[in-house]
């Protein structure tokens, strides 16, 4: 062997895997953040429902707080349950 790797600094970028481009509640792209936040990424995370719809966490939490009776997904009106995959 003439050449071997001693160390390697790799670089990778991450983004959310969402089933849509935009949040169904605030309509902002998932690559950005919800209207209340300045910074996308860890500070404004996405969450998935068991119905497989996905929202900015801040958006769905606000939505759920505004629903008095039933905790429903704003997209499919099924009962909302967080999917902790």
């Amino acid at each position, binding site marked *: *062997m*003439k*050449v*071997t*790797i*001693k*160390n*390697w*600094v*790799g*670089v*990778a*970028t*991450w*983004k*959310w*895997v*969402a089933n849509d481009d935009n949040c169904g509640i*605030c*309509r*902002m*792209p998932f*690559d*950005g*953040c919800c*209207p209340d936040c*300045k*910074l*996308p*990424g*860890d500070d404004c995370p*996405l969450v*998935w429902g068991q119905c497989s719809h*996905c929202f900015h966490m801040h958006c769905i939490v606000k939505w759920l707080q505004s629903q008095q009776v039933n905790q429903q997904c704003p997209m499919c009106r099924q009962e909302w349950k967080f999917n902790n*995959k």
Partner: protein
Amino acid sequence: MNVENWRLKIRRKHNELNSEDLSPVSLTRYSEFSGVKRKRDTLEIDENMSDNSSDFSKRANFSAITSNGINRNLNILNLKPTTTKKIVIKNLKSEPKLPDDFREQTWGKLQEAVLAIQNSRANEYSLEELYKAVENMCIHNMAHTLYNNLHVLIDNHVRRNIEQFLAESMDRFLFLKKMNETWQAHCRQMIMIRNIFLCLDRTYVLHNAQIASIWDMGLELFRQYIMANTLVQTRIVEGLLMLIEKERQGDTVDRTLLKSLLRMLTDLQIYEKAFEEKFLVATERLYAAEGQRLMQELDVPDYLAHVDKRLIEENERVYHYLDANTKPRLIHTVEKQLLTDHVTNILQKGLDGLLEENRLNDLSLLYSLFGRVKNGHTELCTAFNLYIKKRGRTIVIDPEKDKTMVQELLDFKDAMDNIVATCFNKNEKFSNSLKEAFENFINQRTNKPAELIAKFVDSKLRAGNKEATEEELERLLDKIMVLFRFIHGKDVFEAFYKKDLAKRLLVGKSASVDAEKSMLSKLKQECGGGFTSKLEGMFKDMELSKDINVAFKQHLSNTSQELSAIDMTVNILTMGYWPNYPLMNVVLPEEMVKFQEIFSKFYLSKHSGRKLTWQPTLGHCVLRAKFKLGMKELVVSLFQSLVLLLFNSHDELSFDYIKGATNIEDGELRRTLQSLACGRARVLNKIPKGRDVEDNDKFRFNNDFVNKLFRIKINQIQMKETTEEQKATEERVFQDRQYQIDAAIVRIMKMRKTLSHNLLISELYLQLKFPVKPADLKKRIESLIDRDYMERDKDNPNHYNYVA
């Protein structure tokens, strides 16, 4: 002090002593007639008299004689009791008899004495005797006659004296000299006469308001005869003007003579009427012509120096001989003729040159002179502003000078700041105007200054920039921030800054974390947290990556996977924070692919809902390379590594083969090969030799490679930033702006629910930090309406409603 003054002073002293001897206190000894009451009166007066005479002796200047004469007169007037006191003589059985020829004899004595004084002869009688004579005449109701007789004597004398000035052919200067001597003599004589006739002043004059004091009577007669004769008066004034003009031309003139004669005019109360008007007209005429002429002949610095000199001279003129009341109008005349009328011309002709050549002294003078002129500073400030805009534009507008633009801007700002601080008295109007001018010209070229300022900062923050200490760097960054403040398209700066910051962070090229953080906090302070949040996010990613790598190593040792001895670390970047990088699918050796898979799996197990994308353009490695003469460590990019690793199984490879085996993009590959085979450290040999990599080239591992160092960094050749790449960054900025406008509109509409077009636009302008045209905003609103984020109000098309 000249001899004349000196002599006068001695004489005055002498007079004082005499009048002491004859003071009213001792007077009571001689006067058998006065009662107790009267004694008290005279004593009261005496207190004031002695006050006066001590005042008198303090003054060394002969002109004080006259003013003292007036003072004394005033004091006596003030002393006039509110209720008139009368001398009442009672209880005397018989009046002492006066000799029959008392009046003639006494007056004869006095007349003799006055004539002696007027003709500068020795006086036969003692002053005490003369004083007593006056006193006795006053007591015996002869004061009126005495006063009138004295008036005739003085009248005759003054008239005779004036006659000598009527001769036609007298040299002007001699005329003035003679006039001055006459005046001086008059003053001297009147003082002596007044001393003798003191009692007259204190009784007769004091009790008769309409009667002038002896001193004033003298002045009045002098004035009368000069005033009466316009020829004499004109000759005096013209002579004075001639002397002053001579002095203004640079000759030395007899200032004492000027002063004495001007004081004479003042004392005679004809200074304003006879002299001042004519003097000011002459001044105006002279300086009007001089201003016109010198503005042509001299350059501006010399002209300013001349004006300054003239103003000093005229002030001295006031100090030395003119009446102080003339000063405001005199100086104003000079200012008007030499400055006010030439303000525009001076600025047009000279300001740019002075600023260009940094002539601080001349600029200070310009500022102080213009301060004398109404609106002078405003005009100067306007011209200063124009200069900065004109000069600044040449710095930013020419693409040829882009390399030096930022340094030139910094130097220019320093120079202008310095001028405002040292020459313009830190005048706020000027420093504000300076800022306005910088902001104006720096934005005359869109985007480029912002880009170049970002790159300039990069060059200073990059490792290897050893030219500055920490403090110097800090100061420099502060100065750059001042320029940054003027930039309208701050997002353009951010885009370029971010690109460079990414490079510094990922390749470990940053000179100092402290300096990076300091710059970041400056940007934050200037533009707010929103501006720097993504940049801060980049720093945060770097920190988080460290933790992830520690956990990853832990994970590897826990699971004890079979892997070769590659020490792998990964920087995980949050997509939204960092610049966009072109996606490249390159072929990695199997072991590297395996590493990537293990890492991805590990990372996604910790962070669900995410997708990782590897960025081969940003990776780099340290390689161990075995050469004939020994082992070396090579610090290289991932692309360089991929090429070099191919030579483990081959000695010689063609360009095409390498391209196929690595799948590196053509241009990138050519630059990579160039760096390895044509640079300073040639670990490959190119066949045939040559600078550029051609399609048919072959490459060989250079077994004979030698280098002093053990660890060698082989720089990847950077693609020269092409116009296209530049455009790409600008395009990204543009797209980001669209996105930001959309977000702002939605934010505002969501909060307001309904809003008129104009109000929405003005709120947007408050929120958006970059220049944007109203037409662009309109387009974005239309687009949002199309996408059902908002709608036009059905009743009022100028209103929008938010669509929830």
